[in-house]
């Protein structure tokens, strides 16, 4: 099993969710985060005082999937989330040791 973590632009969440659902990804966890990479912040002005706001709102998606599915998952996220402008985000994949469904006690592949 692998954990796929994706940081994307907030308005792309629905597109990514639908794309993943089309290949059978049933669940995910979504968090609102702030961050920056190469996309610089923006300037805000309040009564003439300028502030450079470095952190931009992003959405982080986390899902645990079978290893065989990872390449498809990446491909779906990339095509749904890409806009071509700086700040589209990143995807990270890491190994998962165990997964348990709390309600039934199912383990590993049965749990995801």
């Amino acid at each position, binding site marked *: 099993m692998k954990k796929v973590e994706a940081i994307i632009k907030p308005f792309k969440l629905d597109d990514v969710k639908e794309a993943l659902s089309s290949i059978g990804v049933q669940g995910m966890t979504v968090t609102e985060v702030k961050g920056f990479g190469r996309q610089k912040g923006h300037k805000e*002005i*309040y*009564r*003439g005082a300028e502030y450079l706001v470095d952190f931009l709102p992003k959405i982080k998606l986390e899902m645990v999937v079978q290893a065989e599915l990872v390449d498809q998952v990446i491909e779906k996220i990339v095509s749904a989330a890409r806009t071509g402008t700086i700040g589209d985000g990143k995807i990270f994949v890491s190994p998962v040791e165990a997964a348990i469904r709390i309600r039934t006690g199912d383990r590993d592949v049965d749990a995801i």
Partner: protein
Amino acid sequence: MNAADNAWVLASSALVLLMTPGLAMFYGGLTRSKNVLSTMMHSFFLMGLASAIWFVYGFSLSFAPDAFGGLLGGLDHFGLKGVGGAVWPDQTIPGATFMIFQCMFAIITPALISGAFAERMKFSSFIVFMALWMTFVYCPVAHWVWGPGGWLAKIGALDFAGGTVVHINSGVAALACALVIGKRKGYGTLPMIPHNVTLTLLGAGLLWFGWFGFNAGSALKANESATMAFVVTHMSAAMGALAWVFAEWALKGRPTTLGAASGAIAGLATITPASGFVGPGSAIIIGLIAGVVCYLAVLAKTTLGYDDSLDVVGIHGVGGVLGTLAIGFFASKAIGGADGLFFGSAAQLGPQVIAVLATSIYSLAVTLILLYIVKAVMGLRVTTEEEEAGVDTSAHGETAYNL
């Protein structure tokens, strides 16, 4: 007693009171979220404290017959003695109506000052300082301008609704506070961005609404004077909003909602002293000037280097000065008061300048003294840890947003 006059002044009193919670929201939205409650507490607590002082001796010191050579009223009305249903001398409303109307001014004036020390003042020191300030600054100045036998009134200075008593007074006191209390930790390096501009806009709307009571109610009659004051108040607010927005668009590149709200308030503060003496055409010019000049004053703050967190000096101080001096130019006896320079007489300029100087110098000097006294006895600021955690939790044990 005139029933219409009484009804209008009572309604105006309610309108003016609403301005203080409005101010609480206006200021609250501009601070960081960890300090919003403490900022609003300044206004809400003063609704209690200032009223109590007013009832016990504040009204008397301001509006009792003169007892100290034009400088202060006596204690004839201590505990509101003699202030009841009976019509007040030279008026057509009961004494208690006049008293309660003026009470709302006595509440909002100290509340205005709180913008200068937001996010770092110790609450117990705030209480002591405000009680002293009302006693030694607000009441004397109110007496000079509006009290029977007040010396500024005797030299012919005009102030319809409080350009000196409220705006210059609080603006200059705010400057003193900013200088003595010092800057917020991290000012200039840490971003200190308004946490909720929508709250500020809501507050600005309530202030604009309530200001009709502030200015038009000061006619103390439901007559043409009240009507003209109402109209010019609105004109000045409207023009102030436009002027500020266009000025910031030109100078900084974008029109902002905060600019629209601030410009309206600048227009309102500036027209306040002149509201009973100028016509709509003059009000339009005054509003436009207010929007631009107060905006520039706020920009100048960064160059001058003091941390007046919520721009009390730039908007109320500068606005109050502009409006009080504007009377010397734009006043028209046909509307009320006297003729200004543009209506044939330079005679009003002198008294207006004296009123501005007297109020500014007195407020600055006495506020500084009071601040240093309170600082010596109990300190003025919260500790560094308290300031970093946020005054809401450290002083009040509350969090504004438990989402």
